[in-house]
């Protein structure tokens, strides 16, 4: 039981770090890494619960998340390169065309 708690606490800490990173940092790549951190924090929770409940579903879910995260990284980096080619910057403050 203690074990599960410590995993969940670690996961919560990682998730919070990730969230704060996404909310405060301006460099797009750092923001992106923070999103990955959040995803992996969730993964940790899944695995911990899976182990605790003796059910493999959570671990299988983690595989899917990792796959999606990999695809997201590929697409995301391609977008940053396209963005950089246009704006000479990867600062997310510069991505503001939606503004009226």
């Amino acid at each position, binding site marked *: 039981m203690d074990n599960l708690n410590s995993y969940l606490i670690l996961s919560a800490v990682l998730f919070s770090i990730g969230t704060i990173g*996404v909310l405060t940092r301006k460099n797009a790549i750092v923001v992106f890494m923070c999103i990955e951190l959040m995803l992996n924090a969730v993964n940790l929770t899944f695995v911990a619960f899976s182990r605790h409940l003796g059910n493999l579903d959570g671990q299988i879910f983690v595989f899917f998340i990792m796959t999606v995260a990999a695809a997201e990284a590929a697409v995301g980096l391609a977008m940053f390169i396209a963005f950089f080619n246009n704006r000479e910057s990867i600062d997310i*403050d510069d991505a503001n065309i*939606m503004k009226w």
Partner: protein
Amino acid sequence: MFDNVWLIPLFPLIGFLINGLLGKKIKNETIIGTIGSVAVFASFITAVMIFMNLIGLPANERSVNVKIFSWISAGNFNADIAFLIDPLSCLMMLVVTGISTVIHIYSIGYMHGEEGFYRFFAYLNLFVFSMLLLVSGNNLLLMFVGWEGVGLCSYLLIGYYFHKKSASDAGKKAFVMNRVGDFGFLLGTFTLFWWLGQTHDVWTIQFTELAKNADLFPTGGIVTIITLCFFLGATGKSAQIPLYTWLPDAMEGPTPVSALIHAATMVTAGVYMIGRMSFLFIRSPETMLTVAVVGACTALFAATIGTAQNDIKRVLAYSTVSQLGYMFLAMGVGAFTAGIFHLMTHAFFKACLFLGSGAVIHSMHHALHHVHSHDDAQDMRNMGGLKKFMPLTYLTFLTATIAIAGIPGFSGFFSKDEILWQAFANPLHGSMNTVLWAFGACAALLTAFYMFRLVFMTFHGTCRIKAGAEKHLHESPMVIVVPLLILAFFAAVGGYFGVPKLIGDLFGGIPNYLEHFLSPVFANAEAYMHAHTHHAHHSHALEWGLMGTSVVIAVVGISVAYMLYMVNPDIPKKFTSAFPVLHRAVYNKWYVDEIYDFVFVNPCKALGRLLWKGFDVLVVDGIVNGVATVVMAFGGVIRYFQTGQIYNYAWTMAFGVVVIVGYYLFK
């Protein structure tokens, strides 16, 4: 041996794939031409071997189904990739592969230096492949695949010079008119399959199975509907009234194409199909009468147009339509063997005529090009006296012309006379017989006239080509002349395969080989006909008399042409000015194209324009664009709620999550 029958269509398919895919890289004309010709020649050799095996069998066993694999199998419906080898398909395979080989060789010379040489040979091989499927398939569906395939190749080859608008228009016209016919073919197939299955629980589209169950079909009624649908298909493919107008326009294609597809093989597919389904056609007197009347009318109608055309290929085109009419006349009076016989002899002499005209055009074009003249190389008014420049071409052309005119001893005489005799003597249509015979006889008179008019205008008289060009006229190279000689030989002697009994007896009992050979195929239809009609007995004297009449008719036609175009060339001009309306109507092909334009084409275009401008642009595009406009208007308003800063959104999201989670935690 029969198991190898699939090789026959396979060789041209391989030739098509090699030339079609690699031809652009090969570039060398000799290699491309050799591949194309060898592929077809290999088929010919295989067909000859199959034929040898077939005649080795007893006559009543000469019908072999060879299944390669099961193609479609759904519920009661079964269609195999399978071939039917019987005298009819075997004869067709021999004619198709034999004439194709000759024309392929000719094309090496004729198409020399043309852009897209490889394309031409690829299409030509694809055509031979489709045609062989058509004649050897053992069920209606496989036949239809070939039927469509030859239509496609016809379209591609008519539009071979696609940068010329008239050529691409002619290709489209041929394709669309053929579609009308194909629609009939499909409806016929569906009705046949459905009706036989529903009423007798016999689910089949295989020819031999259908023939075996032929007695299940009633006389008339549903059979009339089915066969009329099939006949509509035949009128499209074989250029009969009312769907014939595409064939003269198809002359826009290169001349070897006109010879192979639009004279010798593809256009006879309708005749073959009726022969193949003879057991069904014979069971509907109404359809048989329709076939006979349409055939007779087409034979006469096209012949009248042929008398006034000046383009050498157009005369031959109308002549082809007219001769196809003869074949349908034969089919319609129940003389199936005679129809197939004329198909065969016509293939020889008409291919020879077309290739000969190609040689003339080739030479004319070359000579006119030398003197930088823009005169039409196909217009007979620019020709004349070519005999002394092209003696071999003249000789072969004359042989084929004599054959088509029906002079005794040459192939056309035997087949045409057989048709006329059967039209007169066959009891199927009662009192209509005399009328049918009269139509055929008039067409024969006109045939002899316009063909010799063509020969006289082209090869005899004074040379009317632009001054200075005549010294550039010359005989064609060997690769063109040798095919002409081969075809001319068969145009002369091809008739001896089917000598009528009357003449055969006179010369010590020469048997009618073709009739003996083909009789098992038409046995069912013949038996039905004998059981249901009174066999009228005609005396030998009458048959001799009619034969004499048709010879006289041919001689009169030739003499009139000689009088008008050799002895006194002024008469045609006087005649034209005396009957200007008649001449204009005939010269303009009785304005059939204009009538079709007015009745069918223009209303279709108007309807299309209405649907385009009215429905598509206003309604369909209006809805799509309207949706987009509404969405944009909303977006224009809602965008004022946006800051455009990503972490504003991120903060909002995070805050929202906290609120939602908090709500569930503390509620």
